[in-house]
């Protein structure tokens, strides 16, 4: 297939004319009016066409690929799936994850005694999720990290745990598509 060059079409030379200016104004009125009536009609038939979302009362429905803040997957027994292997901590470009591993008597002998994510540094890039060899850290739909102090943006393990079935049809659905590549 060939590409070719084309010259852009410039508007006709502007003659110092009242008529052209008036025409431009009328055209502008026509366009803005069209938008107005369209939005009004949408409002009347309850299918709003305005794209403004009244956050936080209204929220966008995010696609399942959506990459919010990283969370820890909680297994059915209430414990985290994470075994504190540290790959996410290492892969994180901004060093926002801090893990201190420890030993447990469970079958899998290791667990994160401390698992902190500094959300004020996290940039939601998802490399932790990609590095994880256990499907233990995934991105959630949550993006709200406001806190009254800097300390509040440091999320600890208990804040980060999310039951696995809450993630199944969001991000996990998205990443699991690529598992057998």
């Amino acid at each position, binding site marked *: 297939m060939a590409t070719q060059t084309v010259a852009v079409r410039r508007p006709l030379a502007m003659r110092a004319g009242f008529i052209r200016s008036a025409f431009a104004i009328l055209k502008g009125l026509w366009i803005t009016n069209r938008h107005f009536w369209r939005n009004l009609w949408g409002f009347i038939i309850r299918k709003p066409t305005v794209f403004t979302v009244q956050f936080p009362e209204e929220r966008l429905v995010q696609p399942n*690929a959506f990459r919010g803040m990283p969370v820890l997957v909680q297994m059915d027994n209430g414990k985290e799936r994470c075994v504190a292997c540290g790959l996410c901590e290492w892969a994180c470009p901004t060093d926002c994850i801090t893990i201190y591993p420890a030993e447990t008597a469970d079958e899998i002998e290791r667990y994160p005694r401390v698992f902190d994510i500094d959300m004020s540094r996290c940039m939601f890039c998802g490399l932790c999720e990609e590095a994880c*060899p256990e499907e233990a850290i995934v991105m959630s739909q949550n993006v709200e990290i406001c806190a009254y102090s800097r300390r509040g943006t440091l999320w600890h393990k208990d804040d980060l745990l999310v039951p696995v079935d809450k993630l199944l049809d969001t991000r996990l659905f998205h990443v699991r598509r690529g598992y*057998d590549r």
Partner: protein
Amino acid sequence: MADNATILATLQSRFTSGIERSDIYRDDASVTIAPEQLLDVARFARQEASLSFDLLLDVTAVDYLGQQARFEVVHHLYSTKHHHRLRLKTRVLEKEPIVDSVVPVWVGANWLERETFDMYGVRFRGHPDLRRIYMYEEFQGHPLRKDYPKERRQPLIGPGSPQGNYQPAIPEIPGLTHVEGLLGAELMRVQLGPSHPATHGTVRILLDLDGETIVNADVQVGYLHRGFEKECESGFYYQAIPYTDRLNYSSAILCNVGYCMAVEKLFGAEVPPRCQFIRVIGGEIARIADHLLCVGATALELNAFTPFLYALQARELIWDLVNAMCGARVTSNFVRIGGVSADLPAGFADQCRAAFKRLLELVEDTEGLLLENPIFRARMEGVGVMSAERLIEYGVTGPLLRAAGVDLDLRRAQPYLVYDQLDFDVPLGTQGDNMDRFLVRLAEMRQSVRIVEQCLKMIPDGPIDIDDPALRFPGKGRVYGRMEELINQFKLVTEGQKPPPGEVYVGTESANGEIGYFLVSDGTGKPYKCRARTPSFSNTQPLAELVRGRLLADMVPTFDMINMIGGECDR
């Protein structure tokens, strides 16, 4: 287009002694020349008809700490006539890092050399104005030197004044000493920025005004400098991808694609066709978003609020597409070394078509409100004109250059990915004023829509990742249950992809021009040098000349049409 061997042969036959080394690695021609020959070689490369390297893309340096000739100053050249490239390298000593400035040959070397001086401390003999450009004058040391630790912090105010009694010194504009205006009054010094509502980007422009006429301007960038290159050099190759998002944050995927292509070139690897199509789709969608922002913001800053809303509404549709592809609207982090992070979601083609239908309507409305509008036209037409030759000399690429009628679009000139299979037009301007820049961007959006629609029809089935465990993380399904793949995952994450030693440059057409990545690998998992040649930096440079002699009000549309993206310009 001359092939690399011919270029090198031409140079060698002319300079028998000055050329220390010349080689072709991964299709990149490069010559190492003696420092005293640099200016001659540069002149020859520019003037010789069979070479005619009229576009200086980039000047940077590589710090080979521990070697006697420690700094290697690297120039990347491009010929808009023949569409070929050349890399000029010059080694300078650690003791006396001085090399000739090439500003007499390409005026655009000015800022690039200032940056190299700022970051590496290499001095350029004959440079008209060798100041720091990103760091402040009080900064100690040169941050990109290998012996400057990444962790070192310096106060943002001058040393010795930690209490903050820092008086911002207003630097003198070079070449301007107390010029009197027409009426005998003194010139008025106006600071536009660093945080000005009409500059969507943090930049300070020092203007000297005679009445309303701009006598001189000094553009000061660097307010968004965050050490992109230093960060990249201290992380693994895969860790730099999120940082490339933040170069041009209004078309992040295009920046991802260029970077990953550069790393793949280091490996000599090629991604499968489906992946290439997905990259083109993502990239073109991002390009539309970038142009929409530029068009809308220009309208806004010329007091037209409604078209701005239409453009942003259209951009919202684009963000929804990007969001569905990769899970983030702006900072996509979509492309991976050797692939993409995920396949297109189900029903993406239909979503795209529906979005484009509405998008084109909105673009039409934006255009309809503006193009016939006398105020808009009065502020755009005939403003910010510069000849094509002068723009090339400044190193300007992209829509800006095409608006001046130069047929330079890397997608057409040096097709990469699958652009050679696609049918699209390259819109060119005729007069090179702001109106042409505006029109070129509008036209490019429509071409991008065309490209994406073609891709969606043509995209083949198949893998989206390269089948090479040394590049791409293995599929998670296998990591969870198999030993070799688990080990592979561990080794890739902990040590990174390790390309063979070598250096490559990859230039791709981003929304504002050529974004080029110059990578030097020393065989480890971290790039030894990761340089981003960004279009916004080179495009912003002629601003001072574009507005000189014009009214202050002309500053705004001209700056908007340059579309300086702070993240990309300041890195």
